């Protein structure tokens, strides 16, 4: 059957802006000839690529001449239409699948990706080897710029306190604790098994048991591998908010503000209470500390439960109660540090002549 025919066509050769209007001859097979009073071109059907659609028109370019534009009427004979490249609508994948199916597949894949992304910190964090975490921690903060306070008596007292709440035997695994020369009532567990009590917290402490509670809590974060989880979560957030704050952290303040989940806080508290019970340390000191915090932040035990639920930390009042409930009535607890040792801790930063000031700017 002879399917050859001709139809009106316009084209631009891509070298000048002159329009050529004439006919397209198709031999019914692979060859096309464009013929106009002004120009003539001959090429294969396979040379054509879809470029664009317009109302009533299809536009093609040539692979061998990307600037070439052929404009054909949209209602061309079906025989030719079947030979020409198909118009692209959404993009190759979606055109092949159909919009509905493609959207459904993408939605499922995206939901899976989001679920993976959101849960990754929780299951990936604890699986990252402690050695890696130590290296990440060292890269992030190093030696803290000499801002850790040291005196022989204070170091000995801190080591004694740490030994009671962190039972690890070999030095390799031991949590590294320090008192940072910073006047804030706070304590942080940093990546790499490093725990810092801030001097402000140490100086306001009324008993060594209080410090044991806080130290035990931070050691709990390290031992339960919460730090890596929180670091990964913050890393994920910074990817999501890329541009707003692309840094991994905002330095130490970022790490200090790095949030743990409420469950993680409870786990760390439970860890601290278990170690304190093993070492016969009174939990009442920690209870006093949280009670004072509760007063200061005015979220007392009968404060609004909603606030306690919203805040990432369990409310201080709630925590004071939990510590108080863990206390045994008899026999009486021995003091965890002597008065001299406690005093050495409290004055450690003031007594250290070499410690660097904690000013960032």
């Amino acid at each position, binding site marked *: 059957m002879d399917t050859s025919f001709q139809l009106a066509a316009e084209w*631009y050769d891509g070298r000048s802006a002159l*329009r050529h209007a004439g006919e397209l001859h198709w031999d019914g097979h692979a060859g096309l000839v464009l013929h106009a009073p002004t120009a003539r071109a001959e090429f294969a059907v396979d040379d054509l690529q879809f470029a664009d659609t317009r109302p009533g028109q299809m536009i093609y370019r040539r692979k061998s001449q990307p600037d070439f534009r052929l404009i054909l009427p949209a209602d061309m004979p079906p025989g030719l239409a079947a030979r020409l490249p198909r118009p692209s609508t*959404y993009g190759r994948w979606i055109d092949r699948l159909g919009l509905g199916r493609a959207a459904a597949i993408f939605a499922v894949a995206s939901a899976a990706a989001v679920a993976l992304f959101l849960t990754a910190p929780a299951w990936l964090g604890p699986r990252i080897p402690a050695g890696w975490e130590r290296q990440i921690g060292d890269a992030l903060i190093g030696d803290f710029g*000499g801002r850790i306070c040291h005196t022989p008596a204070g170091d000995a007292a801190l080591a004694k306190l740490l030994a009671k709440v962190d039972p690890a035997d070999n030095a390799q695994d031991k949590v590294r604790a320090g008192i940072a020369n910073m006047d804030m009532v706070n304590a942080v567990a940093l990546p790499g098994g490093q725990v810092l009590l801030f001097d402000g917290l140490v100086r306001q402490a009324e008993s060594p048991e209080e410090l044991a509670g806080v130290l035990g809590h931070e050691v709990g974060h390290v031992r339960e591998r919460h730090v890596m989880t929180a670091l990964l979560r913050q890393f994920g957030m910074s990817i999501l908010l890329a541009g707003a704050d*692309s840094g991994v952290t905002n330095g130490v303040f970022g790490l200090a503000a790095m949030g743990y989940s409420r469950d993680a806080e409870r786990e760390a508290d439970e860890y601290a209470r278990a170690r304190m019970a093993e070492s016969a340390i009174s939990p009442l000191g920690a209870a006093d500390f949280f009670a004072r915090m509760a007063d200061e932040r005015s979220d007392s035990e009968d404060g609004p439960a909603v606030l306690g639920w919203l805040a990432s930390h369990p409310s201080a009042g709630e925590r004071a109660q939990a510590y108080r409930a863990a206390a045994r009535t008899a026999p009486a607890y021995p003091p965890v540090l002597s008065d001299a040792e406690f005093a050495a801790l409290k004055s450690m930063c003031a007594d250290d002549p070499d410690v660097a000031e904690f000013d960032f700017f």
Partner: protein
Amino acid sequence: MAAGFSRDTNLLDGSHHADSADSAFTFEGNWQDFARIALPNLLLTIVTLGIYRFWATARERRYLWSRTRFVDEHLEWAGTGMELFAGFVIVLVLFGVPYFGVSFVSQALIARGYEALGSALGVGALLSIFYLGGVARFRALRYRLSRTRWRGIRGGSDSKGFAFGLSYMWKTAVGWLPLGLLLPWSMTSLWNERWSKMSFGPFAFRSDGEAGGVFARFLLFYLAPFVLFVGGVIMAGMGMLAGYGIGGENGVALGGLVGLIGLVLFFYLGLGLIAVAFYAKFYREMVGATRWRDLRFSFEASTLDWVKLLLGDALLVVFTLGIGLAFLSYRHWKFFMTHLEASGEILLDELTQSRTRTAGHGEGLLDAFDMGAI
């Protein structure tokens, strides 16, 4: 030849202006057709967590360009979603990752006690973003021209925009220095510099806009706070008086509060209006100062036209609960094409293909900084 134009000469003289149906730029699209593109785009962008937006942009532009007629032929958008995506990935790898690394190192330095070095590194990172912002503005325009075709011919630029990035940095800085007074100069000068490096076919654009034309409008920014403050005080006073009339002492407080809220609204709306008035004038001046070969351009949108456009945008987005966002590119393109005019003469014989090099990737830099091209 087609459409009654002579073989090689195409006259666009004043008579085209008289008859708006015969304007040099005509937009023939409609929002129903655009919706058939924009709404599936929205769906696909959501289900791919935003990755489809590069392909969505290309589809939208193919529609908008192909429904825009310049004299006797439609435009064509020859860019693809894949190259926009590639541009984004390139920027991410070339600039995003190093920036991430630098801010990491800078934080680590600060934590180790090298505050000065760490801060310097951080400032350096910010400066390089400033520089790249200028380069990005240049390259976005170059990319759009290189992917825009009319009668098979495209535009482009021989410059890669790195020099423009430096100009952008120092001119913007100088513009801000004397209390921002030189901003009209830096804006016009940067427009001139950018457009004068662009070309379409074998011919370069020329732009020689002068800051003097827009300076009077710009001074409104300095005058406005005083006018608005005095007006606001009068309003607050009247509010208090009215309040006293209604409810004695308590009424005064209430009236004063209402007056104060009025003052704040008045202030922001007033400054916004001045910004719109300035930009309206700026575009009229600068498009009017831009030429290509024998073509002169003009842009005839008044401040009121811009206000209507922006209010329309806001209402559309609010009343469609955000879905209207998908139609803003349509509205803006239509606005642009409706008000853009050209007059002069094009010799089709000498309009040959552009010899500028084209980048194989899209607006990556610009995409990363989220700016408009023009």
